């Protein structure tokens, strides 16, 4: 409950307008929504392309003790040794597969919100089968990255020895996630927790992201509802043409530059009542489990997909916010 209250509070704070948005000096064409992901006109789409269209599982991470950007190579070495040891202990990995696993740890300095943020850290596991020749292609089998986008709330309250990278995103097999996670936990005395996304937050995402301007033809705004507790479970997918969804949101949102809870509620209620008019089903009584728009999709189990590089940082800002609220 506290987490939710905290989030609502912060959303309320952000909705009154952060200087942050204006500091970036975006063009006046785009609606200035400090809360909504902003189009990053200076982001290099090439550098972030590898993050797009992949499914990332989300975790919140407590601050890392005595982590240093200068020792990334050493961390890669140590993690590599750890993985090899785990394999030998028999706590592996994939049955019957003998893989030579290589670890790379790098910094992504362009993935941050403010200057106070720590640069994002990327961990990648690649493999090469020992049978194939030395210089053959390595295959990327697992990626995980820590990041902090506008995490001032957390970082300003934390002692010097700690590094704040509260959001962790993973793509790859669970067995590797648990090995890498264990190593980080042991080495930096931090802890990981799956980040769930509540229906409340999903509604915010639906409203915010629907309002974002997208250059090319956008995909539909889709809401997925689940009714598991019936004798026969039911899933409902409700997809709205992106232009129509945006037109609705534009009439709901009264003040450019801020979004308030009431507006999100009105937006969702409009969609629910349009649905009810046709089917006489109360969507509000079901569970909203997934939201999909042209810029990103999010699932309540804490799974995200980024679809547009120019809104990447904006979405990360929201996710960082969620991670921080789960930690506190």
């Amino acid at each position: 409950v506290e987490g939710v209250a905290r989030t609502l509070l912060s959303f309320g704070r952000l909705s009154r307008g952060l200087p942050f948005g204006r500091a970036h000096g975006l063009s006046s064409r785009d609606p200035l929504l400090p809360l909504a992901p902003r189009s990053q006109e200076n982001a290099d789409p090439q550098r972030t392309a590898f993050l797009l269209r992949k499914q990332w599982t989300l975790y919140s991470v407590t601050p890392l003790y005595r982590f240093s950007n200068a020792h990334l190579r050493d961390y890669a070495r140590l993690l590599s040794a750890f993985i090899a040891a785990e394999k030998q202990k028999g706590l592996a990995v994939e049955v019957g597969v003998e893989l030579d696993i290589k670890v790379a740890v790098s910094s992504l300095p362009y993935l941050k919100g403010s200057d106070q943020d720590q640069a994002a850290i990327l961990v990648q596991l690649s493999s090469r089968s020992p049978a194939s020749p030395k210089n053959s292609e390595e295959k990327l089998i697992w990626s995980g990255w820590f990041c902090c986008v506008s995490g001032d709330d957390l970082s300003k309250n934390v002692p010097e020895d700690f590094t704040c990278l509260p959001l962790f995103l993973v793509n790859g097999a669970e067995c590797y996630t648990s090995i890498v996670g264990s190593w980080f936990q042991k080495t930096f005395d931090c802890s990981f927790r799956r980040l769930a996304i509540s229906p409340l937050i999903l509604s915010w995402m639906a409203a915010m992201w629907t309002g974002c301007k997208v250059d090319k033809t956008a995909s539909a705004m889709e809401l997925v509802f689940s009714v598991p507790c019936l004798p026969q479970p039911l899933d409902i997918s409700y997809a709205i043409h992106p232009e129509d969804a945006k037109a609705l949101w534009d009439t709901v949102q009264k003040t450019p530059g801020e979004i308030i809870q009431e507006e999100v509620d009105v937006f969702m209620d409009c969609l629910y009542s349009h649905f009810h008019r046709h089917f006489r089903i109360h969507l509000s009584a079901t569970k909203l489990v997934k939201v999909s728009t042209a810029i990103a999709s999010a699932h309540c189990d804490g799974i995200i997909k980024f679809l547009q590089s120019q809104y990447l940082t904006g979405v990360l800002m929201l996710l960082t916010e969620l991670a921080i609220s789960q930690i506190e």
Partner: protein
Amino acid sequence: MDETVAEYIRRTVLKIPRDEIKTMLEKWGLLSETQLQTINFRQIKENISQDVVQLCEENSVDIKQAAVLDIIYNHVYPNKRVWCVYQMKKTGEEAEFFDLTDFKKKFKRRLRSALKNVTINFREYEDNAIWIRIAWGTPCTKPNQYKPSYVVYHSQTPYVFISASVLKSNLPLLCQALVLASNYHDIREMELRSHSLNSLKDIVFKRYSQNFQTHYPRPLQERNVAPESADLRIIQENRNEKERIERVNREVFGDGPQPKLEFAQYKLETMFKSDPQMDVLDKKEPFRCLVKFSSPHLLESLKSLAPAGMADAPISPLLTCIPQKARNYFKIREKKHFFPESFVSP
């Protein structure tokens, strides 16, 4: 025996659950009783299938015979495929006597005149169901036995069930062949699709118990009502409302078990209407939506919504009309009518 035939038989046997293999081979009838007795059906499937292939070699089984095993498998497990329903149309002639031999001949002739390389098998089952398996090739390639189309035709009806894995380009030819062979004039695809072949049959053959508006609602004593609590201090709130919901729900869904469908899809092109006080969207164009309901047993699921408090009773006719209209794909537009609350579905 061709190694492609051997491989095809091997793979077909592997699909079958181990406990069913013996029965299906018996139905198939290509291996003698003596031969079947030499197979150890307790060993792993890989080995069973190798043994079967070995015996088929001895019998010089050809691809057309091998295909029969595939039909048998699909007849027992039709729900692994998605089936579309088609309806054929005559121009008001009397029902003619159905000649199976004539049907097969005309069907094969039409397909073969267009495509040299095609494998066609027929198998008749009870209730006048004719199963047709077609493996498609091209002028230069042999038929692809791994992507066959399946057709189930009930000769006493105008309905044909086609398994949707048909390569799109062959569909018009297939439809033509069916119409010609069965002496109909035309064929149209119904907006009805499901994995459950039997449920599709239930719907088009009206084999489910339909909902009738009763003027004399049955008194509730006949139904299994949850036993009243012995403690008189416990009162069921809204008992009247609960009973009303149950009754109305039964009226719109009918009493018997629902046909089994997995999804229903609605393309909405209706206007967005809101409370004028809310001061939101007021467009003259439709609010375009696509709604999809999915469930292992959709109609039963929808039936349980009102009693669970998640839907009004009666629930929308857009949902309850699915079996009668024999469709699960709808396009809903606003009715240009005096009463803006009604919808029309073409």
